[in-house]
């Protein structure tokens, strides 16, 4: 990947709201180049979206998150893809990964209450024919998410003037 694309992505990954003109200054290039590259990468689905990291806890909105380990029987010709699709199409599922090791799929899910998630597991997930077993882990506290530490930032303590 060329250098300028990588630099654009590294910046957008942590600051998707940056002004393209400003980004051009930071990377030492012109705005047209940046705009063209960003548009091209959107088209190529290298950039898959611009999201916001929210601490819902602090916003006072109660949400429950869980990780679900799912063991499945892979299907002929389609391996795990078909069964993964049946799971990830549910809107409450926020991520689905094929995993190496003791189980097959890791599903992360978001719901308003414990019950809502339990219901999803018992009435939607487990009944799928190819699902052999599930294990659900509720998230109790998020310390760091998407590379960002969620604790309050401390103020800088450097002296104001140093040689």
């Amino acid at each position, binding site marked *: 990947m060329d250098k300028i694309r990588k630099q654009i992505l590294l910046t957008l990954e942590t600051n998707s709201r940056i002004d393209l003109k400003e980004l051009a200054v930071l990377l030492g290039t012109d705005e047209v180049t940046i705009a063209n590259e960003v548009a091209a990468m959107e088209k190529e689905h290298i950039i898959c979206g611009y999201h916001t990291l929210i601490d819902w806890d602090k916003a006072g909105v109660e949400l429950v998150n869980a990780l679900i380990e799912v063991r499945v029987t892979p299907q002929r010709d389609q391996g795990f893809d078909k069964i993964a699709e049946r799971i990830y199409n549910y809107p409450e599922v926020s991520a689905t990964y094929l995993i190496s090791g003791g189980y097959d799929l890791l599903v992360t899910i978001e719901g308003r209450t414990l019950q809502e998630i339990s219901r999803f597991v018992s009435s939607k997930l487990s009944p799928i024919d190819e699902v052999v077993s599930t294990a659900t882990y509720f998230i109790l506290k998020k310390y760091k998410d998407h590379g960002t530490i969620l604790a309050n930032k401390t103020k800088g303590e450097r*002296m104001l003037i140093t040689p």
Partner: protein
Amino acid sequence: MTRNPLSKKAVSLAPSGIRKFFDIVSEMEDAISLGVGEPDFDTPWRVREEGIYSLERGRTFYTSNAGLKELKIEISRYLERTIHVTYNHASEVLVTVGGSEAIDLAFRAMLDSGDEVLIPQPSYVSYLPCAVLADGVPVTIPLKHENAFRLTREELEAAITPRTKILVLPFPNNPTGSVMTKEDLEPIAEVVKEHDLYVVSDEIYSELTYSGQHCSIASLPGMRERTLVINGFSKGFAMTGWRLGYVCGPAPIVEQMTKIHQYAIMCAPTTSQYAAVEALRNCGKDVENMRESYNQRRRFLMNEFRKMGLQCFEPFGAFYAFPSIQEFGMTSEEFATRLLQEEKVAVVPGTAFGDCGEGFLRISYAYSLEDLKEAIGRLEKFVRRLRG
């Protein structure tokens, strides 16, 4: 009648120009600063963790005087891959308490009373007093804006006398951000060899070079044997508070420096030394990321200066810009004081780094972009007001 407890030498040293300004700033509430000479990044976590681990293991003893063997080996490997000069870890490497101690030791080990030390200015504040404390005679070389504050052959030749022994080469430079490339250093090396001088090359900002690779004068032909390379962990690895630096050079000089270090300091902090081993082994990526951040801020700052019509040569090293304020007809100190009082932005007057810094300001970009934007916005307002 009590006896004067003070030595004439101590009293003769001028207090640091920065200190004076610091006192004004620290009185002021909600001032924002562009005045620090240290990274805004925390030390990479893996390095901090290694320091914690070494404390947990109870490694709270002295190390050998010259430093931990593992660290000295890593330092010589690091210099081999970065400046392509090979040092014997057992006899040519000394671990010090920051680069500052190495500067002090270099002068004390090499100078006899009356020997002259050439100090290009603007530059870091401690070369001059350290030379005086070592009974040397500091001779400053004022560098010029039109040369992007690089030392030229002619300036060097004009300053040399039969008593000249040491040339200090402070590049990448604090406060100007100026760097010297291989092409810039070659004529300097020629003069140094011609006049049989030694070079104390302070390369503490070597990791923060934004136009190609840093070049050390020690890597030029015939210079290794007459150069002390001083470097450390403070700037590139964001480890200022750990107080760890080193010096590499010819064994006979390092041996004498080690002797003085042994009597004065014993050894550099042990925790820091263990942490630094990790820094040299596994922090290449962290350093690269910090360098890229500084570079982005540097471009931002230069663009802002251009927009407000503030004259500034492009700095390619360290994390400072050194814009000219000569158009306003004020001294650097007046400008900085008024900027602080009227807009609550602290910058360091160029004169804190030598008289030839008059008419310039040191602006540090070791700040987050948000902080920089806020501070530069205020500077812009101030400049606009001055221009009427």
